[in-house]
């Protein structure tokens, strides 16, 4: 069955088709969840909730555009919704950071570590960083999605970058002390 047919079957609540769709896309969507969540356990929860939403809303998919993109949006949307209530607990600074400061040595840093430090970011920074840097949303879009101003989005992004860079530098200092 091709993808369109699978989707149609899912629209008819066909259990086998639903499982097929899960098998096809769960790895990519789990990766999305991992980036946006704080740890693996939360990511698994978000994956489940996200897929349940996807299967509920699949009737709204109109076959115009990428299905994977649509699913990803549903997944991200759901995660943002979950974390919205928590973001007000964090304190966010507003400052600008020059671009040159954000360059780092081109060493090979393990993916696990990069994922870990993203997950460790405060919620809003993590959201903004993922949305802007990895998923390509604009500050305007992020501002509307998170109900903040574009200025806040930009400064959150800057702050996220600083935090990440600091952690990477600290990591390299531990790993390659001779290089410094």
């Amino acid at each position, binding site marked *: 069955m*091709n993808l369109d*047919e699978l989707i149609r079957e899912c*629209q008819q*609540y066909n*259990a086998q088709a*639903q*499982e097929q769709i*899960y098998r096809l896309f*769960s*790895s990519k969507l*789990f*990766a999305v969840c*991992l*980036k946006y969540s704080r740890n693996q356990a939360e990511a*698994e*929860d978000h*994956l*489940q909730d996200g*897929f*349940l*939403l996807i299967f*509920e*809303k699949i*009737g*709204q998919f*109109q076959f*115009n*555009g990428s299905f994977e*993109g*649509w699913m990803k*949006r549903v997944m*991200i*949307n*759901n995660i*943002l*919704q*979950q974390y*919205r*209530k928590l973001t*007000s607990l964090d304190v966010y600074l507003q400052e600008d950071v020059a671009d040159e400061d*954000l*360059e*780092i*040595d*081109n060493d090979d*840093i393990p*993916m696990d570590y*990069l*994922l870990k430090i993203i997950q460790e970011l405060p919620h809003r920074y993590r959201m903004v*960083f993922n949305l802007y*840097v*990895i998923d390509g*949303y604009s500050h305007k*879009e992020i501002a*509307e*999605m998170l109900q903040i101003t574009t200025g806040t989005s930009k400064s959150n992004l800057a702050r996220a*970058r600083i935090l*990440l*860079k600091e952690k*990477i530098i600290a990591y390299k200092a531990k790993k390659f002390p001779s290089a410094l």
Partner: protein
Amino acid sequence: MKDKKHIDRLFQEKFRDFEMTPPESSWRGIQERLPKSSKKRRPLPLWWSLGGVAASLLLGTLWWKIAHPLPTDGNLQPNATENPGWVQNPEIDPQTIDSQNSSATDKTSITNTTSSGNSQIVSSETVTTPQASVGVPSNFKVEKSIVSSETSNRSLKSKSSETIRINTTNSQGTTSSLFKKRNEDWANGTQTRTKSNSVLNQNQVEDPAESSNESSAFNTLNTLSAQDFQALVHTNLDRIGTMQLPIPYPMGEILHEKEEPLKASKEQKINRWQVHSYLAPIYLSSAGNGSPLDVSLAQNKKEAVPTYSYGVGVEYSINNRWSLRSGINALNTEYRTKDVSFSQVTSVVGLSHLESNSAGSMIQIESMESPVLMAASNVNAMAAEKLYGEISQRSSFIEIPLELSYKIWDGRLGLKAIGGFSTLLLRDDNVALISGGTQVTIGTADNINKTQWTSNLGLGLSYRLIKDFEFKIEPMFKYQWNAYRNSGNFKPYFFGLYTGLNYQF
């Protein structure tokens, strides 16, 4: 000096193809929570769908009217609700929701209502009016929460009884609430977002008809369109007699508009019906060499004249692969029996199955193939002048096919296998003599069955032109079972190339 890279690029490159397989328990968790579609979705006939939509619109309008009387003294009036999707959970006491704080920041509250035992608020958020919006007091609070009335260990959003509650509190601290339960309209296969809503008195218990409905579409907050949400809030505010509050909620919109425009209400369209019109050249032939007119003509060469059939048809999709089709066509057949001679005589021994008209009754027909003349030939006939020509037997029918088709390949170019049968109803027939360019009708055949059957088998090739239109070519073979009574060995069949346009809806 190592080359440097911007931190963004570092992450982009690393995460570009990032994938990770989730544990199998994740799928099991999803499977358990998926609504069991134990009742098979049977496709409903079109008139049910239309009727369902009309009834829902009517009910929605009626209810909207009833649910919106003018605000009186701020009391919450119990309203009869005809929309079973709205349900009140009497166990939730709004006072337990922490909504009295009038600061303008978002707030979280996840509270358990111990008095009710098994109800929990899963998530809630409070939004106050942005200062920047329309001259509205800034300490309006609209609280949206997702309430689940069942709990499970793993997650609070487990069963089908989730409710969205919207509390609106004005500066005097008066709160009004709206509740909404999951609601999906099964009858017409759409996920309805009911814009209509009602306000229920706190003490009134509604027993929705659909509370035992299987879990289905859930209008989560972030997918309420801006208008829906505003409508809900407006209603709430009407209840407490205050000004309207525009609160934009475009998160869902932005995410949708990243690639495609947001549509306010999406209907699930299942194109079950198709109509088509077609025109087909028909090539007739016969298995066997007999003659339906007379046994003496059995040896004669028979030729079928290509004719046309045209008509309209309708097709109903039972599921993705199988469809049932029917229609109505006009079909004409013409067979010619060649190499006959004829002469005008006074006393004619006619062809066995020819019912002559006045002209025909004076014409003696003989086969040139058959060496033996008909029995009791007339001596006079031998003396009369003989002419040569052919007999044409024409029949016209109304054909009503009933066929099943199986989609072998579905795509822009489609292929299906078609089989079934048709009923042919004879409209008229005539037999004529053709000779030297002139034609004389000599009568009708008396052995054509008025109702005939054919077995049909064929293939359908289709090409999707634009959205709901297809161009089709369907070669079909149709074998006529009982065209004639006593036709000797003449077993006609025909082959048609049905071409036409198809429209789905």
